[in-house]
């Protein structure tokens, strides 16, 4: 049920069932269930990269699509990353264009101690046009190898990251 911009009514206007349902019922339902998508990782293997330029973490599972009515979209992610004394950077590409630019949303210096590399962000993207949009989690490393734990059964690191998007206005 898509949101419809309600019409301003005046004293004496007749509020039919159709108007009531469109302006109130349907919009309340739409606001209760805004366009959203999420993915909780429970993979067979962790994600790894040696790329020093931003690339998709997983072009299939960590690619979320929603059809918005136009406005603001909130994006969230949490997870654990590791590497041998390197920096891992995270960003999100909307429709193929990175939102963070430069070094992305966040960067974290990590070691091979998994719990030192707890990463997460919440990002408000304003002025998103109405229509279908695809959001992909991207990352890069400063050097070496970065690992994003994916609930793959790694000892002491069997953690399950989540990536989500939701229209919020």
């Amino acid at each position, binding site marked *: 049920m898509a949101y419809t911009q309600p019409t301003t009514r005046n004293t004496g206007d007749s509020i039919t069932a159709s108007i009531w349902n469109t302006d109130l019922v349907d919009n309340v339902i739409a606001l209760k269930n805004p366009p959203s998508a999420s993915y909780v990782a429970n*993979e*067979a*293997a962790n994600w790894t*990269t040696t790329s020093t*330029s931003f690339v998709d*973490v*997983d072009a299939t599972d960590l690619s979320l699509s929603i059809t918005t009515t136009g406005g603001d979209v909130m994006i969230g992610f949490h997870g654990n990353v590791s590497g041998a004394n390197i920096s891992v950077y995270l960003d999100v590409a909307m429709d193929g264009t990175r939102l963070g630019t430069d070094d992305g949303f966040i960067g974290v210096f990590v070691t091979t101690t998994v719990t030192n590399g707890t990463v997460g962000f919440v990002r408000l993207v304003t002025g998103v046009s109405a229509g279908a949009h695809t959001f992909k989690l991207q990352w890069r490393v400063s050097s070496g*190898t970065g690992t994003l734990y994916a609930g793959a059964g790694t000892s002491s690191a069997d953690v399950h990251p989540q990536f989500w998007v939701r229209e919020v206005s």
Partner: protein
Amino acid sequence: MREAMIVGYGRVEVIDLALRNALGIKVVGASTGGGQMRAHLSENSAVADEKKAVGVLERYGALTIESDKASIVANGTDTATIRYAGIGTVDWIAYLDGEVYATGEEMATASMITASMITLTLATEIRGQYEIHVISRGANAASGMVQVEAV
């Protein structure tokens, strides 16, 4: 940026090194996960480079690497001899319990080559599961792996 991808799983450091051996500075990196192995190529790469990268990914694990022992004693003196059927200089990456433990290259000196095979020697004082990957060089870079347990 160009990207080459095949379905499969491999050690990302091995894939990265094999790609760099074949494509040099056109390689930005490699990624694994989600059941895929991916090569990331620079902006100045061409379609031909993308095809070459797919070939490298497909040759992951294609080399036959053998060890004369599946298990050695972790006393620093017991050895396993790793053999690779080739005579060119190769790179190697050793993993210990899934983490990169050591890397290096072996020059194909005459003393190393026996019956067209290069031999590497593994000896260690650290117990664990060793995974030795050998990566060939050149445009047709490929890799192979053998496991040796140190007890």
